[in-house]
């Protein structure tokens, strides 16, 4: 049995944190080796060392049996190591081919030979079943296509060892399935894959071997066939993890959020939300599920005030908020965990402490007579970081940009849950998070529900919707095609509704109709 990559006793320190502590990793050729760990367990750091982005403080690396020093990504490339980064590194207004050839452009005389390059990209794309158009511009193609461009970049450079850094975090379930097929195809063609992830399902589905890290330390390496999700979760978190949310039956009270006959245009200028009515009551979680792009984004943005609506009404605690600003809505008790954490959730160049007080920076104790109170801001941040286990190198002083995606997500969740809003719009709250963190956040959401708050949960993860919700509304093509009891439905029924094949008439008459005449 030959190992293509071996990393021995790797240690790496960052300011305030030991990211990797004596980690040993051996990768077999032509296998899919998963690297499992919580957010901040040191997976990305270890892979960045292998790719030459960081230098280890201790340990050694062997590639194909030879000891190597990977001083920068160019060395990694020449060793046949390629990496698909979690945040894509693509130039938005370049074509697919231009992005791929950047840095090693084929040329005739002084001119780039774009024709030859396009042909080669086309060939590779066909060989691995990637179906990428070499002439398309990056800004015009979907996220999953962009990811394939990243894969093509490595293949174009004849990479043999492919590192995928949490590749499924940005994909829909269907796209994840396609990616798994692509990975298998790559292995068939002789590549070796290193998959960084914290999703147990994916490991079970696609990986051969799994190495688990916890808080920078090596926990163990197991063949995937001999283990199950529960065991891997326990290795990763260090304790037993429950995959199911413990909760009492809901005791729904007053309607806190009421949406009536809402119409919203999407970015393309057509109606993304059509004549939609919904209510969320105090003390319940209403889940909204649907395939990505069926109007969820427009609905959420309309409710939270991020976009304009065409017609309809939105009531918060019986007050019309249809035309109020975001700030006014927030002040009246609306909370929001946004879909796009970097765009709408955080100011990336602010510190954690500053991001935590972004709603109420002007209130006591964070400000006195218009002057920010550094001490109060710091204490508030330290408390939330502790409570929600946000891992950041320099605590309250860490710039949001310097944190991993999962920890950015935890920070937003911490800030919003801590405000305890009466009506809480929660979009993809556990996106990019590991099972331990998911368990905790679900528990906190249910606690909010039990404090008689109204929770509107929007998620693409069907498991999450079914576990956390009390009622589930299914959105298809901008319309609600049915509302069902979470306890009385199953994945099949929801799947049929999500694809538009099945419609369920409401079991209870919708109160919105009466309100229209009132």
């Amino acid at each position, binding site marked *: 049995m030959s190992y293509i990559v071996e990393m021995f006793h790797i240690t790496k320190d960052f300011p305030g944190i030991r990211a990797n502590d004596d980690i040993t990793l051996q990768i077999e050729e032509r296998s899919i080796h998963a690297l499992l760990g919580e957010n901040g367990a040191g997976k990305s750091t270890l892979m960045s060392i292998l790719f030459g982005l960081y230098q280890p403080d201790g340990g050694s690396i062997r590639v194909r049996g030879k000891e190597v020093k990977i001083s920068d990504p160019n060395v990694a490339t020449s060793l046949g190591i390629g990496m698909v980064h979690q945040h894509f*590194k693509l130039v938005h207004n370049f074509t697919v081919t231009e992005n791929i*050839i*950047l*840095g090693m452009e084929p040329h005739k005389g002084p*001119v780039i030979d774009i024709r030859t390059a396009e042909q080669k990209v086309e060939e590779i794309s066909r060989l691995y079943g990637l179906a990428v158009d070499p002439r398309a511009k990056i800004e015009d193609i979907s996220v999953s296509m962009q990811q394939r461009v990243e894969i093509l970049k490595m293949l174009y450079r004849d990479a043999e060892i492919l590192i995928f850094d949490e590749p499924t975090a940005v994909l829909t379930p269907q796209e994840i399935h396609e990616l798994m097929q692509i990975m298998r195809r790559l292995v068939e063609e002789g590549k070796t894959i290193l998959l960084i992830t914290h999703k147990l399902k994916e490991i079970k589905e696609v990986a051969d071997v799994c190495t688990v890290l916890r808080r920078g330390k090596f926990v163990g390496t197991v063949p995937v066939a001999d283990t199950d999700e529960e065991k891997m979760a326990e290795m990763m978190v260090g304790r037993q993890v429950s995959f199911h949310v413990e909760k009492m039956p809901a005791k729904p009270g007053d309607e806190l959020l009421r949406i009536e006959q809402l119409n919203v245009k999407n970015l393309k200028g057509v109606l993304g939300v059509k004549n939609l009515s919904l209510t969320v009551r105090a003390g319940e979680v209403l889940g909204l599920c649907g395939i990505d792009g069926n109007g969820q984004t427009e609905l959420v943005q309309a409710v939270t005030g991020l976009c304009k609506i065409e017609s309809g009404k939105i009531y918060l605690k019986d007050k019309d908020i249809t035309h109020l600003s975001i700030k006014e809505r927030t002040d009246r008790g609306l909370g929001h965990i946004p879909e796009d954490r970097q765009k709408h959730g955080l100011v990336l160049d602010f510190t954690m402490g500053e991001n935590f007080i972004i709603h109420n920076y002007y209130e006591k104790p964070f400000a006195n007579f218009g002057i920010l109170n550094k001490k109060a801001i710091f204490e508030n941040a330290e408390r939330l970081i502790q409570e929600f286990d946000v891992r950041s190198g320099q605590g309250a002083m860490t710039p949001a*940009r310097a944190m991993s995606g999962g920890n950015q997500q935890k920070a937003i969740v911490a800030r919003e849950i801590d405000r305890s809003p009466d009506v809480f719009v929660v979009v993809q709250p556990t996106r990019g998070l590991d099972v331990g963190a998911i368990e905790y956040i679900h528990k906190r959401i249910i606690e909010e529900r039990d404090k008689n708050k109204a929770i509107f949960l929007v998620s693409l993860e069907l498991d999450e919707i079914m576990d956390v919700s009390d009622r589930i509304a299914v959105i298809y093509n901008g319309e609600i095609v049915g509302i069902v009891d979470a306890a009385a439905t199953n994945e099949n029924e929801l799947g049929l509704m999500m694809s538009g094949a099945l419609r369920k008439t409401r079991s209870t008459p919708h109160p919105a109709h009466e309100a229209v005449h009132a």
Partner: protein
Amino acid sequence: MTFELFLQMFPIALMFSAPIILTALGGLFSERSGVVNIALEGIMMVGAFTGATVTVLLENSTPAAAWYGLLAGLLAGVVFSSLHAVASINLKADQVISGTALNILAGGLTVYLCQIIFHQQRTRSFSNGIQKFSVPGLSKIPVLGRMFFDQVYPTFYIAIAMVLLTWFVVYKTPLGLRMRACGEHPQAAASMGINVVRMRYFGVLVSGALGGLGGAVMVLTADIQYTLVSIHGTGFISLASLVFGKWNPFGVLGAGLFFGFSTALSFYAKDIPFLANLPGEFFYILPYLLTIIALLLFAGKSVGPKASGEIYDSGKR
């Protein structure tokens, strides 16, 4: 306006266009590589001063003095812009502040050097700058010959050649692709093994070369000596042309011609019946007024290089 007047305006308009186009192309290189270069004005001043000085000093020894002046202006631009490169790339200073500092420095520096070399606050006047010429054959073409080939400054042709060369380099060569990548997404470029720092140096130094050349062209065609007000905002007009021309060489050519004509118009306005009643001062402010209007109309819509003005930090996610 008579047609004759229109034809007369042409060579003058082209003369004013040449330095604007050259300098704006310089700005294009800098911004495409990711560095905002507001120092174009100062670079032009330094180029103009050097061009005029070298011309004056060599005038008695060689008939090609003005051409040496152009070359000297170009080199001086490179040297001067290297200050901007060091400040904004190595020292990671705010690029607008660094550019502003250079603009202020240029005024003081050139006048100071004039005082040392010529014992006055301006250069001595040169007797021959770049000379007009007529292209044999082509200048005889009816109408078109009068417009583009009869009694024109060769500097306009240099500008046209630079437009074509810039287009070729920026859009057709590996160098151009890499440079644009640095201006759009430097982290992406770096991940492909491109040296972002070196690429940005290239962009800034080329902008210095073209800006310095532009300054020298301006003083050696439209003036008789360098003074503190020789450039009078042309660097900023070039910057506006860059925005107006959407960071594209041919767009820059169009914008440069537009501003060249608006400058020429101020000289011919009193001969145009329906414009003659307006006060003369109005036409002197015209190019600047049009700059503001053009920026208001186009600035919002045109998109420049995404990472232009952004300090490159290899650790940024």
